[in-house]
């Protein structure tokens, strides 16, 4: 667990085509694996020259995403997040 690379999803709400689910914005998870590069869908959707970006599979605990309302805190959610939506972060709770 100490090797985990934690990332926070930017908490922004920009208009337009975005493939970062809003329920994960502002949440902290750890990198499950790195993929890509893949063209940025926010540019691709509008026919623009899309920048190739790393895509990361980030794993979140249910406790981090849903807090007290989580069904089972240790269950996890993985999502693919483009690198420009992520910033390095500290672990959300004591390891």
């Amino acid at each position: 667990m100490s090797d985990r690379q934690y990332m926070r999803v930017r908490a922004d709400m920009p208009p337009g085509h975005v493939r970062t689910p809003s329920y994960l914005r502002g949440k902290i998870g750890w990198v499950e694996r790195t993929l890509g590069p893949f063209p940025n869908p926010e540019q691709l959707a509008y026919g623009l020259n899309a920048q190739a970006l790393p895509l990361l599979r980030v794993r979140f605990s249910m406790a981090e995403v849903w807090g007290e309302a989580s069904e089972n805190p240790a269950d996890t959610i993985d999502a693919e997040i483009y690198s420009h939506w992520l910033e390095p972060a500290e672990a959300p709770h004591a390891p």
Partner: protein
Amino acid sequence: MPHDHHDHLSPSGHPYRPDDDHPLTYWQQMEIAVRELLIEKGVTTAAAINAQIEAMDARSPAHGAAVVARAWTDPDFRAALLEDASAATRGMGFDIGPMRLIALENTEHIHNIVVCTLCSCYPRNLLGLPPDWYKSRAYRSRTVKEPRKVLAEFGVTLPDTTTVHVHDSTADMRYVVIPQRPAGTDEWHVDDLAKLVTRDSMIGTGLAKSPDAA
């Protein structure tokens, strides 16, 4: 007499079903207009479009079942599938195209379930067209919040010792679950094993069938 009202009944004695004809929707008209323009301008042909529709219709969960059964019986293939599922399934003739495939293995302690909260991303090369419920708002919103309740509604009750891994298919990856191989199938041939692998078991909303149920 039960079948009195002859005006409303078919010769079988049952009421006629109303026709479900209705005017084209806006988007249906748009699809036809764009398709006809693409053909008219020589960008594509009607034959090419039909071929694509036939190719889509020919895909079915039997493809995914063949992949899973092989992973159960061929350790080298299982390792290759977990390492690079796009390449491993392409080698079996199931090309994922521009997307990439990730295989998720269920174990005694891990159960994987796949959802696309943003739309309805689905590994069509292995499973064909997605079921309607996969595209429903209820499945898409509830699976990330209460996967165990959703699983229970599909008839899958997991013990607390099993961790649920939900996979939200948000971008360029597609996911297929490798369900656990049922007990009592040690001597089974790969083709018979494939018959135990259901569509839902590869989405993660089900388990592979037990040999008794096959």
